């Protein structure tokens, strides 16, 4: 029996090791187009960008671990096609590999918008891979002074914080009227805008970039920002092409059931490339987070080994910018009320609690692991929160005070 996994990142690598843990005795073959030993992606925009470290410092697993677990790692090999009838995959170099079970963990790639001049500009970068960051680090050696980041999402903001730390002048251009428009509340957008401003980053919202020239970024409203380093972080495109070409069901992601199985019972998918039905929130969601990749990988491995497993995790995510450590749990979309807490007298320590009616949907916590942990428990168990007490910062955050 052979299990082939396409994509060796957070999702694929965890799936491979979990398969062994669950008792899979057959071959495990893990393919990735990336030639680096699989690594953690989150540090790419954070500590890896600002350091001289080799990417091996951020390896997901030690190289020997793969040998020990009997996992064949085929790095630098892109999978080109899947033949579901013959149950084989073929690599770009033409090698064909049969499978009994197939796992798609193909993730996503940066979206590069069709901005005039972008393709020709030499100083434009995207950031998703170690190679991409090494390219930016190389560009930094020429001592650029003015960086413009197109896109005010988490990755764009983390890059901004990292480049500020390195002493560059940094401007973030966001097309919508506020930062993080799709992922957080206006209140938290304001917090992040102030955080970046206080650290000397220029934040400009409602800026639709229309053109890039050798040394500047031009916006539709006529404004121009000088730039000798440009980083595009406007979101991703899901890598669904392989799945679509193989006739698997995709809509904004490869559609999977609670066992992370696609519409072909021998083909599973997990991580950033999937769309699943969230049991807790009772709606389809596609997530871009380590948590989702790692937790789905556990379910995939167990399911492939014939064990009963069901994906029902509460999503969580983190982001580090300057001295702010953000931890988020749950999905706030559809909230009707937000309660903000600034813990008194402790420096920066805040939390935003999102409710739909009486139901706690999500918590965003800044330097406040207590809020994050309590939020996690309350959301998971659907415990109803005493909102009046929650809003009263004279009462410390304690389970007893909140129920």
């Amino acid at each position: 029996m052979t299990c082939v996994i396409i994509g060796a990142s957070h999702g694929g690598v965890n799936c491979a090791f979990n398969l062994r843990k669950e008792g899979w005795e057959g071959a495990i073959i893990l393919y990735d187009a990336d030639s680096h030993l699989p690594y953690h992606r989150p540090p790419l925009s954070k500590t890896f960008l600002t350091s001289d470290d080799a990417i091996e410092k951020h390896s997901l697993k030690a190289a020997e671990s793969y040998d020990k677990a009997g996992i064949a790692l085929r790095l630098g090999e892109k999978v080109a096609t899947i033949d579901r009838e013959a149950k084989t995959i073929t690599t770009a170099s033409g090698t064909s590999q049969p499978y009994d079970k197939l796992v798609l963990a193909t993730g996503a790639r940066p979206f590069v918008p069709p901005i005039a001049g972008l393709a020709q500009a030499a100083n434009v970068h995207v950031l998703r891979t170690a190679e991409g960051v090494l390219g930016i680090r190389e560009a930094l050696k020429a001592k650029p002074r003015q960086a413009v980041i197109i896109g005010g999402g988490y990755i764009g903001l983390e890059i901004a914080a990292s480049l500020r730390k390195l002493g560059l002048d940094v401007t973030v251009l966001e097309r919508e009227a506020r930062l993080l428009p799709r992922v957080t509340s206006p209140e938290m957008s304001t917090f992040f805008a102030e955080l970046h401003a206080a650290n000397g980053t220029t934040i400009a919202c409602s800026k639709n970039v229309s053109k890039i020239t050798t040394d500047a970024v031009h916006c539709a409203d006529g404004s121009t920002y000088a730039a000798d380093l440009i980083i595009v972080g406007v979101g991703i495109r899901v890598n669904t092409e392989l799945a679509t070409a193989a006739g698997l069901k995709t809509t904004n992601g490869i559609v999977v059931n609670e066992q992370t199985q696609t519409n072909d019972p021998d083909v599973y998918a997990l991580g950033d490339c999937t769309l699943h039905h969230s049991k807790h929130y009772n709606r389809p969601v596609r997530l871009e987070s380590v948590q989702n990749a790692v937790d789905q990988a556990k379910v995939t491995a167990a399911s492939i080994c014939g064990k009963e497993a069901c994906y029902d995790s509460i999503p969580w995510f983190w982001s580090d910018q300057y001295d702010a450590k953000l931890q988020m749990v749950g999905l706030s979309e559809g909230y009707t009320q937000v309660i903000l807490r600034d813990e008194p007298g402790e420096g920066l320590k805040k939390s935003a609690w999102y409710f739909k009616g009486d139901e706690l949907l999500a918590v965003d916590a800044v330097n406040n692991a207590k809020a994050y942990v309590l939020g996690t428990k309350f959301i998971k168990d659907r415990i109803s929160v005493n909102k009046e007490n929650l809003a009263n910062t004279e009462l410390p955050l304690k389970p007893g005070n909140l129920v």
Partner: protein
Amino acid sequence: MAKITFITQTGTQITAEASSGNIMELAKENNVEGIDGDCGGVCSCATCHVHVAPEHFDKVGKASEIEEDMLELDDNANEYSRLGCQIEISEDLNGIVLQVAN
């Protein structure tokens, strides 16, 4: 160099040596089962949880506030709990024994 012993949930004993880095990294390099380190060591996931042998706890020291809060996510937490990624390795840790919590 500090010699550090891990005992996994299945009773396997692994002794490893290092002079820098943190306990989570050391455990990952040595394939210690039960230490996942999903967040890469930024105190965000609590998947690097160890119980320090009581007689060695003073050497390792107490968890920070954020770490203590994160440990509450794990039902297995006790007074000797630490997150491996928050323990920097130094000579002083030579000889300690850590029980992997999960």
